[in-house]
């Protein structure tokens, strides 16, 4: 279902809260691109060691490392394109940024040795996000790739990430620097006070609070950086252009748990507010709800009370009697869990843009951290409807569903629920 999404976009940005399989999903998308003939690269934050190992790029570094075709061939895969992987190195990236934009060696050294800069680049929150987006920019500009998949930091601070370019620009705003630094350097406090009462007051307070040394450091940092501001400002514009390009797609990766979905909603609202609409949603580790035989389960769904009947059916099929109680209760556990997940996913979906494809990947019976695992994911991420799991369920399709690309797993959910959620939306008023 993500096939056309990947085909029509050059940059795919996977967002979502931590622990939902963003890294694995990103790698699976990039691998698929490579198999389809794209020059693909995945920029990751936190690779599973086993995944890096299996790609033959055990030492993921701050440059894209190509995945050898022989590694793919071992798994019977023949990429018509190419695959590369890289890991974000925060410290190095800041230094390279400075090196690239510093007007002279002397300025570069001054910045790199500045205590404020050292903290800014290493200790302080937010710089991780700056760097992820900076690296994306470098990869796009290099022209070496036609599919770039970005695995975003596992963070609730989605805001930081998307607003990073804006924040860089504000932080390095010329006017701000002029206010904050220049009077201090050129005219001293008296001038600052005369210029603006608020500024003068704030200066005194900042100085009291921080101690002169810090302010002098910061001043020095800014005056050293002043030659680089235009370069940074241009950079921020490039980044904005990439994020808003029609060839850039945001894909939300999430899980079916209640708390995870609450955060997914937040992410979805956030990107919409920033005019970067979601172009796909991936649900990972979904428990499969199996169709319940109406002859055996009158309600159409499995309930706790059905355990004895299930156990009896197992015994009849020749399963060893002592194993049956656990098998039956485990099945009911799974089906109740799956039912709850299906309802929650359907509710979540009703709040999303109609056309966003919606894919669910099952929980499987192991975690996916190798090439074989990525291939298993492909079956669901890029399947056409007929390849999807357990398609035999005969839920009636609501008429409207044909217009939106629906996933089979979603169409399995009770149509009554979907109709209700649609009905709840306020009717569009034909106001002129």
């Amino acid at each position: 279902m993500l096939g056309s999404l990947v085909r029509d976009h050059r940059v795919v940005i996977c967002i979502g809260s931590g622990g939902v399989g963003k890294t694995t999903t990103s790698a699976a998308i990039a691998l698929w691109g490579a198999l389809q003939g794209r020059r693909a690269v995945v920029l990751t934050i936190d690779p599973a060691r086993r995944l890096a190992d299996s790609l033959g790029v055990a030492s993921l570094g701050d440059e894209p490392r190509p995945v050898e075709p022989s590694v793919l061939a071992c798994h019977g895969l023949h990429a018509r394109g190419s695959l590369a992987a890289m890991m974000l190195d925060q410290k190095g990236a800041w230094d390279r940024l400075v090196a690239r934009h510093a007007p002279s060696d002397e300025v570069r050294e001054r910045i790199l040795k500045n205590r404020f800069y050292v903290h800014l680049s290493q200790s302080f929150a937010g710089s991780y996000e700056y760097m992820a987006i900076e690296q994306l920019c470098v990869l796009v500009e290099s022209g070496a790739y036609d599919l770039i998949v970005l695995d975003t930091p596992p963070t609730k601070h989605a805001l930081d990430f998307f607003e990073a370019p804006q924040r860089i620009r504000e932080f390095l705003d010329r006017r701000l620097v002029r206010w904050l630094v220049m009077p201090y350097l050129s005219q001293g406090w008296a001038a600052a006070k005369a210029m603006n009462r608020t500024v003068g007051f704030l200066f005194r307070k900042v100085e009291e609070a921080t101690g002169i040394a810090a302010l002098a450091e910061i001043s020095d940092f800014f005056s050293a950086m002043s030659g680089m501001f235009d370069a940074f400002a241009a950079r921020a514009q490039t980044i904005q252009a990439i994020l808003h390009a029609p060839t850039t797609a945001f894909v939300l990766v999430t899980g079916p748990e209640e708390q995870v979905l609450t955060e997914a909603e937040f992410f979805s609202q956030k990107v919409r507010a920033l005019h970067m609409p979601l172009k796909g949603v991936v649900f990972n580790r979904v428990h499969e709800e199996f169709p319940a035989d109406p002859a055996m389960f009158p309600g159409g769904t499995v309930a706790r009370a059905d355990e004895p009947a299930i156990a009896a059916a197992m015994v009849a099929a020749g399963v060893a009697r002592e194993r049956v109680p656990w098998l039956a209760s485990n099945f009911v556990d799974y089906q109740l869990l799956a039912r709850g997940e299906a309802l929650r996913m359907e509710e979540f979906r009703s709040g999303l843009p109609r056309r966003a494809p919606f894919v669910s990947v099952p929980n499987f019976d192991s975690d996916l951290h190798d090439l074989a695992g990525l291939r298993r994911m492909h079956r669901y991420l890029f399947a056409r409807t007929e390849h999807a799991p357990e398609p035999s369920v005969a839920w009636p399709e609501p008429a409207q569903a044909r217009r939106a690309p629906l996933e089979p797993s979603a169409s399995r959910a009770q149509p009554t629920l979907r109709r209700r959620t649609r009905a709840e939306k306020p009717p569009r008023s034909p106001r002129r």
Partner: protein
Amino acid sequence: MHHELYDRRVIFVVGKGGVGKSTVAALLAVALAERGKRVLLAQMGPGRRLGELLGVAVETDAPTEVLPGLSFLTIDGGMALAEYLALVLPVKRLHRLVVTSKLYHHFVAAAPGLKELMTVGKIWYEEQLESTYGRKWDAIVVDAPATGHSLQYLRMPEAALEAFGPGLVRREAQKVVDLLRDARRTVVCLVTTAEEMPVNETAEIHTQLRDRLGLPLGVLFVNRVHTAPLTPEEIPALSGTPRLVHDVLRCAREESGWAAINRRYLARLQTAVPLPTVALPFLFAEEFGLREVRALLVHAEGQLAALPSVVGRDA
């Protein structure tokens, strides 16, 4: 059923995103409140998970009692800074002048680390608060953000010590660092699931907290542990069975598969993260709320009581 974890004033709950930090934080807070303590459950930074869990609709910027003896608070760095300035600048007009100025907003939005510093500072401030009965809170349980950000938060006070010359901020930062490092008052608990990526990250954060930040470490909570009486190999083959039997066996295979993974990584955790460990079972719950937290607490209490007395020892 007493464990020295319950004697600390501040318990930080740290771990990779999505492993159940909020669940463990809520569990500890409920356990303390049930012991008659006045507990503050504080969530660092934005997010709605903990609020959902407690059935609180919105983020609260003032402590709100959600259960008897248990108050909930969301700490927003920007808000904490404004609050802090109100303490430093007691003259109302001046305070308003600063907080409403454009420059202030630029500075706050841009200054890296300031919000983080203020967030940790706010926890220190709450710890110090007095009421007519003595300390306002007997215990503060902190639901920290995902690992990477947690480290940045916990490192900020120290970074501020290094970055700032003598002055007010430095003095304040020193107090916060003192609290964080004091093993009699503070303890950091880790949360993970027994799977590859969370285990790797937990091993790493454990090393960082112990060796680089020198913070007192407490208990490792391993969340969502699957158990199954059968190994994947013991489950009969799937082919040629009736549909229902096939589905039942598939679910069994899935569960025993995860149980095997959890067993393997629990064993790895024993060497990679040498902390007393509490395992919390995966709950098959259609919804996850306070009732489920209480169910997990029953599992945790028994194990905590049996743990060796090593909490807060010097690393």
